[in-house]
């Protein structure tokens, strides 16, 4: 029991981070599932984090309501900026959302209420492990249901071929806005959980680098299923820790591993179709033996 207590004391922060990153990766998975390459999710996370932290610090709202507000605030922003920007596709959408992320970061950096570059200090540590597990599980369940729903099939059709989707009677603009906004809700929740588990938040945590990190986690894990993003988030969070023994070479090796994965497994680590083929190949070989 004591061993566990020691382990928990040392690694709980890391485990919290894995959970929050998994939630972020799932938020981007949702956006990508509709074919939208968005770099706005780090900013949505920031909006959620700041909204939640300010509500706790100044208005002393109860934590569940704080979490709800943390998810809702970026959703409202997503609805407003989504209508004009989602007409863009591919790289152009990535650029527009990137610009939005920078505007958000600079705004937070210069506002008085957000504490400027110093950020917000003394946020009560209200996030417990079961908050993260519960929200992650709920998000995973909701996304799994969504995938099989009418809306999920519409997302898939839009991602595969927008023109074909239109011809089948799918409201492409409406669904894109829905995917973008729902992704913002999940990112905002991750932000709210994060703010209440780290004591301190600053604009630096929600910038361009984080947007790319979220994208890397999701793509590295693979977007063919929900397992991929969670796996990607786990690996990318743990890898720098596991490579600690390499000291100065740590980040270089980290980068090399990523390049290797992208080169040799372009559909991500967890590709359900490829894994299915491998399983079948194995089984036939097994049964083929005398």
């Amino acid at each position, binding site marked *: 029991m004591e061993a566990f207590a020691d382990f928990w004391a040392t690694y709980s922060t890391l485990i919290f981070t894995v959970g929050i990153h998994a939630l972020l990766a799932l938020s981007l998975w949702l956006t990508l599932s509709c074919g939208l390459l968005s770099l706005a999710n780090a900013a949505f996370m920031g909006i959620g984090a700041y909204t939640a932290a300010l509500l706790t610090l100044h208005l002393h709202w109860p934590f569940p309501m704080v979490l709800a507000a943390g998810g809702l605030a970026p959703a409202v922003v997503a609805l407003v900026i989504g209508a004009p920007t989602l007409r863009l596709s591919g790289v152009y959408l990535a650029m527009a959302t990137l610009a939005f992320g920078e505007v958000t970061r600079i705004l937070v950096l210069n506002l008085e209420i957000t504490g400027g570059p110093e950020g917000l200090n003394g946020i009560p540590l209200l996030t417990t492990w079961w908050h993260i597990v519960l929200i992650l599980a709920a998000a995973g369940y909701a996304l799994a249901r969504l995938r099989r729903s009418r809306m999920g099939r519409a997302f898939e059709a839009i991602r*595969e071929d927008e*023109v074909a989707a239109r011809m*089948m*009677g799918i409201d*492409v603009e409406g669904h894109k806005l829905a995917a973008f906004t729902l992704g913002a809700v999940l990112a905002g929740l991750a932000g709210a959980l994060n703010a209440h588990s780290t004591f301190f938040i600053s604009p630096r945590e929600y910038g361009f680098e984080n947007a790319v990190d979220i994208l890397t986690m999701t793509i590295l894990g693979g977007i063919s299923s929900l397992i991929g993003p969670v796996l990607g988030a786990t690996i990318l969070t743990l890898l720098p820790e596991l490579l600690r023994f390499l000291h100065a070479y740590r980040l270089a090796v980290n980068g090399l591993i990523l390049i290797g994965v992208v080169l040799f497994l372009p559909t991500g680590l967890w590709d359900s179709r490829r894994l299915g083929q491998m399983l079948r190949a194995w089984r036939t070989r097994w049964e083929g033996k005398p």
Partner: protein
Amino acid sequence: MSVLLEVQDLAVAYGHIDAVKGVSFQLEEGKITALVGANGAGKSTTLLALSGLLHPKAGSVRFAGEDITGLAPHQIVRRGIVQVAEGRAILTTLTVRENLDLGAYTRRDRAGVADSLARVFHLFPLLEERTRQYAGNLSGGEQQMLAIGRGLMAKPRLLLLDEPSMGLAPLMVQEIFRTLVEINRDGLTVLLVEQNVRQALKISAQGYVLETGLVVLADTGASLLVNPKVAEHYLGG
């Protein structure tokens, strides 16, 4: 015979280039109508404007008595106009069955959807054998069948077909045209855009010949087939 679709002075432009310069035609309910002409005559552009993928610059489109000019594509599909795109536009990473199911996206009557699926499998038995295959692994002809099948799954009142014979082997072209006649026999109104002028006019009750964005000839399919102008320009003399 009642008119299902009436197009008045429809004009469509790509930027400064006028692709369709004011065409008028009408489709009779339950008939096949052909829109024929050379490359760049504005046939596909006309179809895209009818299904809402392009916005008309001028003119009006009335469908079953309602003005549908400028509606969004999904609103037009909901009213019963379904387009089968040129180049087929099927979802190659989904299975045949998933493609067909998506065709019925706008419908909520399960029994009716099951009926439509049975009808599609009756028309294209090949598709039933391949329900679980990825659509990308089908041959060109099979993909065209799937595209038409998917269009039928929406239970349209009007089916718009853009070059269904494009890039297909002659036997497959015969097969597709035979199916179109069969679909039409069920009472479905069809607007057919084709470069294969002879085949298209053969199965069409009415035909319109487009040239550089204008209707230059309008007659029954049979009369157009024997029209010397058509023969000279489109049927190889």
